[in-house]
């Protein structure tokens, strides 16, 4: 099957990007595109989907420590072995010559490789938001890629005080873009999709859902019938606005539809 054989890989490096946010690096020559994800198995704990924040032969994924699995992953070190399946899902596309990147929280990890790859030679602006200054990461990498970086925090401890979508709105008011590339909490992403629609700018939005199989059969990640693992994780903003569940409901592990 072409559906993602399990590979056991050795961790080559693990770094703390900011408070509680870690990047795990490993070597794997599978070809990957920006926005794609893998299923990461922390042996004996659980297997979870992770967007790739580095997509070369040296790959990496970046996560915030939230539960058992991410805690276990954060405690691993160089030489430790983990399982990876994939690469899965579709990817971001470079559209036109002007791109607005919008990243909220750890969502920045999903769009960073797109920024790396698409920014050189284009007009690129990156709006990055977090709850506070301790949650900002990859701002330097965005800048290095060639993007103008605008930072916002909910509490104003770094950059502008407020939501990243407010910054994005102001950018869109003064400048035209050919595409928006975004990832973050779903309520933020719904707002991004609305902004994109208002400013008539096509948006590529990376979504997140609870996943089991990663290969399009278990239906756990269904978003109004679109499978986030196989049809996504990147969807067109207009398509997402047409999904009743986007920004409103998700499926719980048992498959019940619950409010976000």
């Amino acid at each position, binding site marked *: *099957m072409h559906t993602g054989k399990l590979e056991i890989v050795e961790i080559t490096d693990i770094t703390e990007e900011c408070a509680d946010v870690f990047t795990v690096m490993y070597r794997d020559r599978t070809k990957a595109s920006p926005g794609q994800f893998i299923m990461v198995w922390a042996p004996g704990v659980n297997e979870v989907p992770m967007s790739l924040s580095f997509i070369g032969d040296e790959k990496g994924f970046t996560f915030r420590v939230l539960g058992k699995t991410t805690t276990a992953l954060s405690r691993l070190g160089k030489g430790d072995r983990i399982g990876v399946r994939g690469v899965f899902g579709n990817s971001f596309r470079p559209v036109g010559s002007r791109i607005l990147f919008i990243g909220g929280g750890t969502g920045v990890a999903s769009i960073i490789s797109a920024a790396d790859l698409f920014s050189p030679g284009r007009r690129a602006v990156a709006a990055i938001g977090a709850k506070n200054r301790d949650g900002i990461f990859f701002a330097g990498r965005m800048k290095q890629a060639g993007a103008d970086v605008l930072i916002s925090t909910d509490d104003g401890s770094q950059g502008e005080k407020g939501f990243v979508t407010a910054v994005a709105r102001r950018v869109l008011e003064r400048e035209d873009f050919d595409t928006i590339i975004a990832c973050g909490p779903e309520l933020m992403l719904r707002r991004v999709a609305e902004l994109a629609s208002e400013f008539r700018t096509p948006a590529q939005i990376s979504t997140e859902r609870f996943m089991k199989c990663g290969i399009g059969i278990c239906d756990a990640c269904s978003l109004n019938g679109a499978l986030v693992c196989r049809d996504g994780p990147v969807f067109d903003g207009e398509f997402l606005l047409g999904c009743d569940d986007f920004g409103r409901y998700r499926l719980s592990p*048992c498959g019940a539809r619950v409010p976000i």
Partner: protein
Amino acid sequence: MLASGILGETAESMMRALKNGAGGVVTKSIGMEPRDGYLNPTVYSFQEGLLNAMGLPNPGMENYKQVIEKLKKESGGIVIGSIFGKDEQEFGALAKTMSSLKVDGLELNLSCPHAKGVGSEIGSDPDMVERVVKSARTHASVPVWAKLTPNTDSISSLAISAEKGGADAIVAINTVRAMAISARLRMPVLSNRYGGLSGKAVKHVGLRCVYEIYESVHIPVIGVGGIYTGEDAAEYLMAGASAFEIGTAVAERGPQVFSAVNRQLFAFMKKEHFSTIGEMIGIAHRQT
């Protein structure tokens, strides 16, 4: 038809299978209470198939009602409600509720190979199979299909018991109990250790089971296990299946697999001079 356990959590995903040429869909197996299933890894895939131990995740009958109602209302397609329980009482209660939702049939999961106290743990006992089918049959107002396990010394005796209990059809097979070990991690891959094998790897087990069952009972047999192409489907029909379900191939080919298999099956029939599906059913028994 879409086999149970694949894309069966939401109405929209099952509608996709119908739109892509499935003649009907079988829902995820639904039990009395919500159930999260096992932790990941729940799947392990390889060239010839798939190993899974999902652990029967489902939102429970009460929550699932809205899925069936939406599916029936918006698709108008054939919907078979799959149910599982720990004994004949649970199967009876679920059969009653599920059939009240106007499904077109019930599939009794007597065969999940990796869940404790349900599935094949009760479905490999012929007496239990008869009791469960009888109870479901009594409480259901629609046809009842018994989905049997190949993890037994005689699937025919299970089929005979299901027929005695009043089953309207037999579905064979569910997955084959199996496991995967990661040599480099020196441990089982699936969080539940044991899972069910499906896909190309089990086609010949499925064919053998359907062939045996066809000779043992008088009710129709529905074949499932490793059907990827029209010719695979023809083999099941020739072994004695009157219809077939597709599961694992959806992972590899997406929901379009249904229309592809239909197209290939009709092309095969034309080439081999069959004018109806009926002419193929059980023909392999007359050639030996």
